[in-house]
């Protein structure tokens, strides 16, 4: 292997995740393997056409932040910070002793601190400009997710946010990998965070027709690749990974969850919200990721699909997977369990993909009881499937037609 190629092998040495499926990595993996949905009626959405979501049960900000700090952090930032701290601890790294100038942060998000922005917009209309909090400029902007992690952990290297809608997480990991391969950083904290379950965003998505309307039975609403799927269920979450060059990880004898071998990015250049039904952009991203990894399509054992449970995405994505990878890979969509955490989705799914490789276990797709006959791939459902997994990909596709695909290998 050439020196340049070796530099592009990036080890995942730390994982962190806070999601509806649990408050840490172990809880998440356990819940995802059960293949049971986390969606439930949401009292904060009462009166809206779609009044359910996937919330994080038992997340207590006061357990993680001082009373003088907690109210200054938007919920998305709180989730991001907790997941980032988990990932750094899991990597066995100590921010008190690392060279912070060599530590980068790349975080994906779709909506950033949208909850705080929505609250201040209400204040503006109801009370006037003299009552607006100056903290709106600390709590709402998307860049603050990465900035707050940098401050919290003393990470003073490149500090960036990727905003490619629901592909933001893999985009962050892909960009983080470039920062390591180029030598700009020695450690990168990469991932995604979103807390988008707010009345305004949910009303907008309902108007768009993007959401499942199974209000009478939310637990059956997110059903990727199932014939009865009718839209997505929105979730809040954060997923983080600590990335290092494989050689560096080996030199410090770090435990490695998986290796990131490739990233592919593309744009449908087709429509603001609908996927291109030809799947052209998605196929381009999958092929680009495999090419970057130096692998052939026949080497992919497992795919953590975008599988958003919308009628159009799942059939389009399945057709591309069949066309490019054949029927060999074991495919799952963990969104059946977690719902769709927008900018965090691809990040938590990268965590799940690393765990699948580590354990040789593919989690089942929740609620995929009667697979869509148009879906001609091997969707794992009902129970986890054990298999020797060497190579996996994770797909993430965003509004605007922005696509991101990562290739991971067993460490």
């Amino acid at each position: 292997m050439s020196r340049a190629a070796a530099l592009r092998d990036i080890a995942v040495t730390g994982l962190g995740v806070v999601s509806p499926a649990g408050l840490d990595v172990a809880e998440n993996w356990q819940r995802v393997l059960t293949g049971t949905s986390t969606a439930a009626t949401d009292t904060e959405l009462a009166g809206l056409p779609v009044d359910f979501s996937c919330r994080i049960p038992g997340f207590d900000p006061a357990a993680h932040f001082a009373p003088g700090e907690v109210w200054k952090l938007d919920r998305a930032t709180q989730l991001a910070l907790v997941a980032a701290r988990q990932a750094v601890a899991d990597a066995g790294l100590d921010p008190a002793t690392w060279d912070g100038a060599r530590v980068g942060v790349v975080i994906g998000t779709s909506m950033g601190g949208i909850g705080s922005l929505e609250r201040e917009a209400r204040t503006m209309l109801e009370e006037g400009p003299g009552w607006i909090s100056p903290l709106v400029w600390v709590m709402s902007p998307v860049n603050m997710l990465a900035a707050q992690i940098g401050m919290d952990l003393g990470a003073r290297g490149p500090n960036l946010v990727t905003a490619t809608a629901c592909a933001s997480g893999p985009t962050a990991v892909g960009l983080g990998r470039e920062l390591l391969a180029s030598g700009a950083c020695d450690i990168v904290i990469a991932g995604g965070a979103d807390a988008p379950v707010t009345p305004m965003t949910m009303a907008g998505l309902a108007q768009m027709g993007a959401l499942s309307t199974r209000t009478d039975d939310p637990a059956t609403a997110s059903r990727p690749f199932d014939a009865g799927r009718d839209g997505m269920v929105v979730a809040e979450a954060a997923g983080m990974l600590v990335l290092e060059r494989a050689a560096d990880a080996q030199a410090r004898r770090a435990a490695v969850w998986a290796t990131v071998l490739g990233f592919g990015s593309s744009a449908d250049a087709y429509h603001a919200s609908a996927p291109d039904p030809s799947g052209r952009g998605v196929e381009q991203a999958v092929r680009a990721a495999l090419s970057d990894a130096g692998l052939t399509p026949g080497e992919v054992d497992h795919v953590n699909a975008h599988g958003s449970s919308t009628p159009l995405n799942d059939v389009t994505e399945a057709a591309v997977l069949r066309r490019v990878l054949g029927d060999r890979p074991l495919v799952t969509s963990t969104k059946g369990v977690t719902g769709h955490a927008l900018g965090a989705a691809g990040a938590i799914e990268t965590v799940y993909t690393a765990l699948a490789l580590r354990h040789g276990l593919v989690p089942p797709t929740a609620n995929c009881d009667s697979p869509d006959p148009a879906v001609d791939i091997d969707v794992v459902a009902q129970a986890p499937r054990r298999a020797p997994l060497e190579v996996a990909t994770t797909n993430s596709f965003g509004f605007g037609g922005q696509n991101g695909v990562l290739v991971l290998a067993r460490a």
Partner: protein
Amino acid sequence: MSGIEARVSDILTQRFGIPAGLIAEGQPLNKLGIDSLVAVELTLVLRKALGVAVEPGEITSDHTPAEIAELVAAKGASVQ
């Protein structure tokens, strides 16, 4: 401690999470972890809670809780 001062102290604890013991030391806000942005937020909260016409900029992070109580009292704040 005057009634107003107790009310300001209460707000700093309840709304801004500053420990009461730290407030009692009489140090300026910037020693309590309150920066210039949070001082503006505090101004808005005091304006609403006490019904006084205090404007952003009048309370800074250089003020102590006692000075802030004095300032809002001078503007007519009172507690029952």
